[in-house]
């Protein structure tokens, strides 16, 4: 487990999220972020350095005004550390070289924000506050050349949007990982394949059959038919609340695949609602053996396998009848 965590942390976030050199180039092209902008930004770097401290002060004053963001900075020491880190982060915006290292760094910071649970809306709100604050200072600085201030600000806007895209990607990436893990957990929610008699299987399916689980069910059933040499299998869907046309078609395919292998599938437990719904949406189950409940399914399967159920007391008599 520990090893795996190590491995994950050494893998770059760029790789994990799937950001390639080409993707970086594409994003820059889409934002029209180019050489001119870099020159523009490098040009205001000294100004940015001068306004860095007051901007940071305003920035945190603003954040501390809101309950939602205040909770992250309860500790004085933490606050000081975060301020320093944030100052560096902003400073980096006007230093050029928006390359792989830059992207990886931005992703890392995005991931940190995601990890501490900072909502995206707060992240965006913070950046918005920062931009307005900086805009005011830039236009103040270049009072006599407002064009220049605007150009620099627009270039800054492009880099900031590049950053925001990356940060949001880290949020999405994390969610996708979470979804993946949950799916994994659901995959482990198995449908047991029970061997009832020699060459007879029962699969009691419980819960919603979304397409992944339906696929899994098919694979499991066909696999089990192969390994146990089952001639008949009962798929009981009493515990399945909804059967839509997709699931019904999947069941049909399963039945058909089992037949190709040389086994018969009997579908049991179709509730009257489900049966009516299937007819209404036009699913044709006429090629499938269906029975109303598990008991009659079992009887049907036993007939197929050549079993004859005889009450114990009648044994002598039935032997006489069929010597």
């Amino acid at each position, binding site marked *: 487990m520990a090893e795996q965590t190590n491995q994950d942390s050494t893998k770059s976030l760029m790789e994990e999220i799937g950001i390639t050199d080409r993707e970086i180039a594409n994003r820059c092209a889409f934002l029209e972020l180019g050489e001119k902008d870099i020159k523009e930004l490098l040009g205001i770097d000294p100004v940015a350095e001068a306004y860095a401290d007051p901007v940071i002060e305003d920035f945190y004053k603003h954040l501390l005004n809101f309950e939602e963001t205040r909770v992250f900075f309860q500790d004085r020491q933490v606050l000081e550390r975060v301020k320093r880190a944030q100052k560096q982060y902003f400073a980096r915006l006007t230093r050029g070289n928006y390359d792989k290292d830059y992207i990886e760094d931005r992703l890392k910071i995005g991931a940190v924000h995601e990890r501490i649970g900072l909502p995206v809306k707060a992240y965006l709100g913070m950046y918005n506050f920062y931009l307005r604050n900086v805009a005011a200072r830039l236009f103040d600085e270049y009072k006599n050349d407002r064009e220049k201030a605007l150009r620099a600000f627009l270039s800054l806007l492009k880099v900031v949007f590049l950053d925001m895209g990356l940060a949001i990607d880290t949020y999405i990436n994390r969610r996708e990982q979470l979804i993946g893990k949950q799916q994994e957990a659901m995959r482990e929610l198995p449908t047991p394949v029970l061997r009832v008699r020699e060459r007879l299987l029962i699969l009691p399916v419980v819960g919603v059959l979304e397409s992944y689980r339906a696929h899994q069910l098919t*694979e499991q059933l*066909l*696999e089990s038919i192969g390994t146990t040499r089952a*001639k008949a299998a009962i798929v009981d869907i009493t515990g399945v609340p909804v059967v839509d046309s997709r699931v019904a078609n999947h069941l049909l*395919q399963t039945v058909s695949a089992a*037949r*190709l*292998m*040389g*086994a018969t599938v009997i579908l049991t437990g179709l509730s009257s609602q489900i049966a009516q719904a299937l007819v209404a949406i036009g699913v044709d189950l006429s090629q499938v053996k269906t029975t109303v409940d598990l008991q009659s399914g079992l009887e049907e399967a036993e007939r197929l396998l050549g079993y004859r159920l005889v009450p114990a007391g009648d044994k002598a008599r039935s032997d006489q009848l069929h010597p």
Partner: protein
Amino acid sequence: MNTSILKQGPYLIAILQAGQSDSDLLQLQETLLEQVGRFRSRGVILDVTLLDVMDSFATRTLRGIAQAVSLRGAETVIVGIRPEIAFAMVQLGLDTRLSGVLTALDLEEALAILNRRCREGMCRD
């Protein structure tokens, strides 16, 4: 690559090989039909356990064999379609193309099916 055909009493058993080419399959069809006539066989078992893929060509050829064999008065059983291959065939829509052909899990089962069909007089004696 020649497919080996075994004669087992009134039945012929053909074991198809992995990496069989299309022409091998067509060759098999010809040989089988000739042998059904020569040995007056009542049944043909096509064992496909070793095949890595059952695509539309293979399916069409096997169906063709089954149909021609039946015209010569014998029954065909296909044996050993593996789970993943059965699944791929269904996805491809090939299952309905084999709906008239008997299938069995293994050789033993196939022989039992043929014996039963012959007992019931469903193939010539």
